[in-house]
């Protein structure tokens, strides 16, 4: 019953959006009567797809195995939360969620666009509706989540055990909120290009959507990364997997967009560039979907391996991107006077930032599709993995980090670097701090640069915040008020500091990580990086959907007990799969990470211990970046004019 209800509302939503699409595309349809009716359409579409999605979730909760999707992806023994998340842990369900979020953004845009010119609003809604219609068509025609089985099985096939995780349950929805948030800048850009009334502050309109998407993308990537860290069993946090790259590409482009929007907002330049970036950012979200969903790539994420779907999605993407770019080419604003900037103006350095971000994007994109290109054209097989990205991206990240504090301190339309003594002293301080690291042993040039640059970025950002706060103290010191008044600048500096922290964490982990793997008997202990690891006990336990072996380890430093760790090996009954669950003691300065391996013939076990210095800085960095973007988003725009 729920399945039919869901299917019905899915088709209804398609009909509605097609109707609305027609009403926007046929000029004769624009009577006032239609205006009144169509005003509620976005909410209706959102509600319809919502009902459809909830129906699907219900079939999962009720373990209705006569629905093909549930039979393939759920199991009665699964905890409730993973039954619910199972609704989007598969291809069809995740596409339904995808369309629902698209509709959510349509609704949000409609609500928050009251003050915009009606022509722009209508055309933006029109574009957004076209995208929604395309994806609804895809759902209804090729990828129906509500398909019934003639002979329903008694038990479902279960969800992949490594995907049964709380972080991973929220990873796709968060990432989708980011990917699809970019549909609004895309639609606004095209709506703006198609409008005749160009009298609108485009930067202000696009800005909050770009920041919102950037926030969700960052958090989504963070969740996935933390999950990989504790789930995949050896503590890596970024694998340069094609699917990770697919989420990194829109993130990088959105980052470029946010920066160039500043130039448009403050100086009124770069309008074409901003429009192009808005189109490209969403295009890369779509390409990312294609990469994940087409089955072209094989990885944990590619749960669709049906070529006809791949083809349909490919067509869809070509249509969306092709139309977007053609509209841009035909209608892009003509700039009569070539824009010129001063060499030491902020706007010029933001352009430099954009060039580097685009270079990084191109390298990641080309690296991701390179194996397919090579195979298609020459038949050879090549692999492009972490060693390639390390080699080709590092130089640009170094340049980027070095330029960041300088660009951040420059003035709009400025003519010179006014605070050279400050930078020279900052340089010396960072150099001395980095040199002190040599006291603990020799380090490679790359590590040296990594530490130096992270200090360079973090210290300059902290200094910016301090300066800002101290300036306001003369008017009476109120910390929260000052921060509140300067959310944009504080947010900026926080995000920059976050980038520095991320860089420091990445450098530290890759340089000073220690690892030991050995056979251990119960009661044995050994030392690693100042910690003593004692193997205390082993226990067998049974849960509803799996059985497990749990080891108990005491971690001590000197005489102080740091904590107990309980790494597990699980056996999932429904899938007959074994997984290893690492156990981690996170500290501020380092994480102790223990994995339980196999049991040997006697009472010995293989035990793998890693000590990962400063890995928390990686998470902290991304959290700061997200926080910075959200502070920027909530800022009061009126105050901007006074602050710099």
């Amino acid at each position, binding site marked *: 019953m729920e399945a039919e209800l869901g299917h019905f509302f899915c088709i209804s939503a398609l009909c509605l959006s097609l109707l609305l699409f027609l009403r926007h595309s046929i000029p004769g349809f624009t009577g006032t009567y239609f205006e009144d009716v169509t005003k509620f359409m976005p909410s209706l579409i959102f509600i319809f797809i919502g009902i459809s999605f909830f129906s699907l979730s219900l079939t999962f909760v009720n373990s209705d195995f006569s629905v093909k999707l549930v039979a393939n992806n759920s199991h009665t023994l699964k905890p409730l939360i993973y039954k619910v998340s199972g609704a989007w842990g598969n291809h069809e369900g995740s596409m339904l969620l995808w369309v629902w979020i698209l509709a959510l953004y349509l609704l949000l845009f409609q609500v928050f666009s009251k003050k915009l010119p009606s022509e722009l609003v209508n055309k933006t809604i029109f574009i957004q509706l076209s995208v929604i219609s395309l994806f609804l068509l895809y759902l209804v025609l090729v990828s129906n989540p509500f398909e019934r089985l003639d002979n329903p099985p008694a038990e479902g096939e279960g969800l992949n055990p490594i995907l049964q995780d709380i972080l991973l349950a929220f990873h796709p929805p968060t990432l989708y909120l980011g990917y699809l948030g970019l549909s609004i800048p895309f639609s606004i850009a095209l709506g703006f290009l198609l409008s005749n009334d160009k009298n609108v502050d485009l930067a202000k309109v696009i800005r909050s959507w770009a920041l919102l998407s950037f926030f969700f993308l960052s958090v989504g990537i963070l969740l996935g990364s933390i999950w990989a860290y504790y789930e995949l069993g050896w503590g890596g946090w970024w694998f340069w997997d094609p699917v990770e790259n697919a989420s990194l590409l829109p993130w990088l482009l959105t980052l470029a967009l946010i920066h160039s929007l500043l130039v448009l907002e403050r100086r009124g330049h770069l309008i074409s560039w901003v429009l192009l970036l808005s189109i490209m950012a969403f295009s890369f979200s779509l390409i990312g979907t294609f990469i994940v969903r087409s089955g072209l790539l094989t990885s944990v994420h590619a749960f669709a391996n049906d070529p006809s779907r791949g083809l349909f999605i490919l067509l869809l993407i070509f249509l969306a991107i092709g139309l977007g770019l053609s509209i841009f080419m035909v209608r892009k604003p003509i700039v009569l006077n070539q824009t010129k900037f001063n060499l030491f103006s902020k706007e010029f350095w933001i352009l430099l930032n954009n*060039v580097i971000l685009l270079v990084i994007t191109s390298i990641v994109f080309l690296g991701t599709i390179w194996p397919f290109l*090579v195979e298609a054209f020459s038949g050879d097989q*090549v*692999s492009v993995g972490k060693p390639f990205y390390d080699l080709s991206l590092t130089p640009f990240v170094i340049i980027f980090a070095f330029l960041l504090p300088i660009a951040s301190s420059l003035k709009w339309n400025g003519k010179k670097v006014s605070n050279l003594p400050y930078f020279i002293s900052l340089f010396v301080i960072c150099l001395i701090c980095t040199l002190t690291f040599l006291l603990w042993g020799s380090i490679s040039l790359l590590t040296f640069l990594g530490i130096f640059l992270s200090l360079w970025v973090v210290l300059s950002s902290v200094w910016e915040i301090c300066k800002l706060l101290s300036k306001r103290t003369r008017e009476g010191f109120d910390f929260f008020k000052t921060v509140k008044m300067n959310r944009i600048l504080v947010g900026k500096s926080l995000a920059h500091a976050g980038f520095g922290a991320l860089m420091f964490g990445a450098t530290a982990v890759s340089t000073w990580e220690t690892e030991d793997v050995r056979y251990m008997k119960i009661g044995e202990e050994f030392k690693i990086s100042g910690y003593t690891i004692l193997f205390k006990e082993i226990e067998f336990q049974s849960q509803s959907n799996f059985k497990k072996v749990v080891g108990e380890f005491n971690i001590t430093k000197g005489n102080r007990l740091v904590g107990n760790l309980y790494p597990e090996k699980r056996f999932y009954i429904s899938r007959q799969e074994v997984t290893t669950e690492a156990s981690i003691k996170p500290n501020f300065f380092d994480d102790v990470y223990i994995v339980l391996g196999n049991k040997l013939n006697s009472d010995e076990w293989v035990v793998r211990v890693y000590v990962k210095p400063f890995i928390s800085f990686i998470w902290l960095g991304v959290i700061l970046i997200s926080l910075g973007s959200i502070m920027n988003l909530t800022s009061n725009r009126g105050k901007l004019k006074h602050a710099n």
Partner: protein
Amino acid sequence: MKIFFLLLFVIFTNFEAFAVEPNEKLDNEGLERRARLISSELRCLVCQNENIDSSSSEFATDLRIFVRKKLQEGLTDSEIKSYLVSKYGDFIILRPPFKEYNIILYLIGPLLFIIGVLTLFLLFVSKKRGN
């Protein structure tokens, strides 16, 4: 009950090798470090986008042991890698060799960077006197 025995079977036999096992490690620390570095640059051909250092597959285990054996025989890193390439093809190296069409992949970044920066300086920087 059947499940319980199956569970015992799975957990108590060496069902999977998990990355580098203690018995694989070389006593010579320098050689072991080199082995780890080489392993991290070799693709596990039967896995999905994993290097042999972190993979639990039999293929990866065999290859890790092979690399260590060759290191003990005194081969250099590049000798080992080129031997493996001749045996399995370029697919096994996670960093494509700098030759033929792959050169495009390596040069696209620097080229774009140079073009981008040049464009900025030539087209967007205002001449001071003009202002």
